[in-house]
């Protein structure tokens, strides 16, 4: 059996095979680690078994101790938000109810790989301009319609509608959009046959597959446009069907009865999502009264409390983080010396210990994580209070009051407080302002100096493109560096991990030296579940996958 092929038999790109050879030969000393290789190989269409095989290993089998038992209703504590159009989803919670009956084309797994869902496989050309999407056979919508290439094209067209309010998919599919019309450009999408779609992009884009895994990219039925409300137009391809969706109260789904799900049958009879509000202490009472089996997320001090209740903890290392960022259009942060001084005065490891109880990994102020395939390691930087003071004095800003604004939430507030304390140790005049969520979000990207939470994306270049490119909607720092933009564009068209890592080294250095962010750590995410819940774990991007979950019946 040869391993050097994609799932359809065509050979994998040369750079992927070269990386595999290097890894096999090395023994851990290669520039590409196993995790990076797996992610890159799966983007280019290798199966899990094939990817591991290239490394000379067997794919790890999931450690299923027992067979799943059919039956039971899972009770989940999660906020129930607006059932709007999936492409306008802005909270992971909305995605989690919808993903029980709607599915994406590709899924980003908790093992950091890309797993085909509604696609069977895909091929990417070596320069990342041609994508061939091979749809999965035998998929039906729960109203009986078969799933075909027309449905995929319908969804891609909707994702590319740039001028629809709140459509965040348009930014992800920017390379497919015609600048003049604001819609899918002509000649890009080709319906090869019922189960194959070809995309011919005008410019290279290696992030397309990764973008298809995000929660707004759930695939909807062609009739969705008549009533773009996912609670009312709930025709989907998933293992469950929607029963009800009451904002602020509860939502429930039941095992699919109309047609077979392509993956077989879910073990659970149904899932009830119950909204317990924003205060995590309500979940403690809920777990104790056995009103819920699992929660969406366990935060900070509640992790220990929930542990002590005898619940099972699930942890995921992620690239989710918080940035204490300056906005360079406001003085004194327009002076690079001031920004560098702020960075130098802070020790990231201490901020991790104080701001997130040590639950995570230390970061390096450039927003690319070790778990990203293209992470390039930079030389370590130590805290340097004297150096920081000197820079601030040179800039003449030692006496300026620096107001650090944060939202009133547990870990961001604590992190901002810890940063402020360290800055004060260096003699800077820092004032702390904490705003409630309802006012903070009104002006979140205008504050001169504030802290923001950032969720992770599968590839390191994605957040950089969203947050630090000139003129982006979410560029809260106002950072604008033509050299950075040019190098980022180069990285975004370089599929080879090794080559991209070299470019990333420069990109990371530019961002780190600019001092626009103090990005102290990567957060680990946690959730808790009752011992009866089997085969569920927390996901690095907060997705909840229940199709294999089962409840142990007493």
């Amino acid at each position, binding site marked *: 059996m040869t391993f050097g092929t994609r799932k359809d038999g065509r050979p994998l790109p040369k750079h992927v095979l070269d990386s595999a050879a290097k890894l096999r030969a090395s023994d851990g000393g290669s520039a590409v680690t196993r995790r990076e290789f797996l992610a890159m190989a799966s983007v280019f269409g290798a199966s899990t078994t094939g990817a591991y095989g290239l490394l000379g290993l067997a794919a790890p089998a999931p450690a299923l101790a027992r067979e799943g038992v059919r039956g039971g209703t899972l009770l989940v504590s999660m906020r129930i938000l607006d059932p709007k159009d999936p492409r306008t989803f802005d909270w992971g919670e909305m995605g989690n109810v919808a993903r029980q009956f709607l599915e994406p084309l590709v899924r980003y797994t908790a093992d950091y790989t890309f797993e085909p869902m509604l696609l069977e496989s895909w091929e990417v050309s070596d320069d990342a301009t041609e994508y061939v999407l091979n749809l999965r056979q035998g998929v039906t919508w729960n109203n009986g319609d078969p799933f075909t290439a027309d449905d995929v094209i319908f969804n891609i067209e909707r994702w590319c509608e740039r001028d629809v309010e709140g459509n965040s998919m348009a930014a992800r599919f920017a390379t497919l959009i015609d600048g003049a019309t604001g819609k899918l450009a002509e000649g890009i999408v080709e319906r090869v046959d019922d189960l194959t779609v070809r995309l011919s992009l005008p410019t290279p884009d290696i992030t397309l597959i990764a973008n298809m895994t995000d929660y707004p990219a759930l695939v909807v039925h062609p009739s969705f446009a008549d009533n773009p409300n996912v609670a009312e137009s709930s025709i989907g391809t998933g293992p469950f069907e929607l029963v009800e969706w009451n904002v602020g109260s509860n939502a429930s789904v039941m095992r699919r009865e109309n047609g077979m799900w392509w993956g077989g049958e879910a073990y659970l009879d149904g899932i009830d999502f119950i909204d317990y509000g924003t205060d995590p202490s309500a979940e403690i009472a809920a777990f104790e*009264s056995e009103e819920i089996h699992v929660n969406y997320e366990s935060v900070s001090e509640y992790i220990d409390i929930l542990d002590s209740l005898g619940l099972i903890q699930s942890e995921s290392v992620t690239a989710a983080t918080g940035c204490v960022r300056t906005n360079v259009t406001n003085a004194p942060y327009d002076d690079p010396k001031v920004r560098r001084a702020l960075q130098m005065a802070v020790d990231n490891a201490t901020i991790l210990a104080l701001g997130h109880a040590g639950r995570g990994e230390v970061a390096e102020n450039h927003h690319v994580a070790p778990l990203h395939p293209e992470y390039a390691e930079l030389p370590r930087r130590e805290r340097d209070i004297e150096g920081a003071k000197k820079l601030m004095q040179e800039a003449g800003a030692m006496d300026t009051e620096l107001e650090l604004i944060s939202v009133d939430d547990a870990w961001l507030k604590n992190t901002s407080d810890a940063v402020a304390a360290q800055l004060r140790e260096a003699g800077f005049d820092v004032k702390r302002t904490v705003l409630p969520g309802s006012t903070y979000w009104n002006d979140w990207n205008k504050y001169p100096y504030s802290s923001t939470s950032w969720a992770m994306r599968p590839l390191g270049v994605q957040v950089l493109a969203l947050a630090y490119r000139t003129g982006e*909607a979410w560029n809260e720092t106002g950072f604008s560096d033509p050299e950075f933009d040019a190098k980022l564009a180069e990285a975004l068209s370089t599929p080879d991990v090794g080559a991209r890592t070299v470019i990333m080294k420069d990109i990371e250095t530019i961002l780190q030296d600019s001092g626009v962010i103090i990005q102290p750590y990567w957060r680990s995410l946690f959730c808790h579940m009752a011992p009866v819940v089997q085969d569920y774990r927390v996901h690095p991007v907060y997705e909840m996958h229940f199709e294999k979950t089962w409840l142990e019946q007493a």
Partner: protein
Amino acid sequence: MRLLLVKRLGIMVLTMVCLSMGVFSLVNLDPNLRKLSISQTNMRASDAQIESWLVRNGYREPFLERYGAWLGVLPKQPGTDPDTGETVPRFRFCDEADTAVRAGVLQGDFGCSTKFKTPVGERLFPALRATGILMFWVMLVMVPSALLIGVLSGMREGSRTDRGLSTLAIGSTATPEYVSGVLFTVIFASWLGWLNGSAATATSKGITFENFALPVMTMAIYGMGYVARITRASMAEVMTSQYIRTARLKGLSFGKVVVRHALRNALIAPFTVIMLQFPWLLTGVVIVEIMFRYQGFGYLLVEAAGNNDIDLLLACSLVSVAVVLLTQLISDIGYVYLNPRMRVR
């Protein structure tokens, strides 16, 4: 009597109009409108998108026109589809008309809740019912216990019973609900495990002793102290009056004196206070409902305020005015019947 009723109802309507206009002006302050638009479009929407949503949904029309539309004296304007130019209903999730028609409070339509994505009535009335049930049980527990404590302490003023019960009463009044609620949850739900720390199953599966006892207890104990102290003061005053002394001197037993002669007069003042507990409960219920996840009126009010849900907030303020003024009216009329010394002409 009839004149009094008519005058009171007139004052109630006037208060409703004034309060709703005040609330309406507050919710239409620009930061609040921005907050509303952000929650309806996207957490990280741009300024242009926020403004276009507000314009499209009629939030930039003149203040009095919009107030009139909410009230039902002026017609509600539908939105316009930007692509086709046709009139479309403003909010699809509640059956708003796509023509200009009068559909306001006077016609019985409370509007659309932008937070809960449903007509206001569909959330408001079940929530009022839920809070009503909570209030009923709280009153049932609180009133007899408070009166009992008050009477027992007041009938022998200065005794050890009095001192002990008074300390308890003052202690319970001094402890706010968010402290006592947490304490009771820890003791009864976590340590002893007798009761449920969360009332979520009360709304979904029905009220049982286990899931409802803690919220009722938290609210009842807080209000109990206050009513008990008033009752005690009133009782003590009555026990020193001449006719009680006469009855004792004539040889009636202490028990008969208290029950047959003192109580009836002592309970007049507490009655007014108990009626005043109703509006207090309407606000005090907010903390308890959030803490125990019981989705009643208080929870609705907090969510509406936090998300600047205009129609829901206005409806809640109307309900508050109605409850406060109605209970005051009942209190005044009841007082007149209880106390023959006050008779209205």
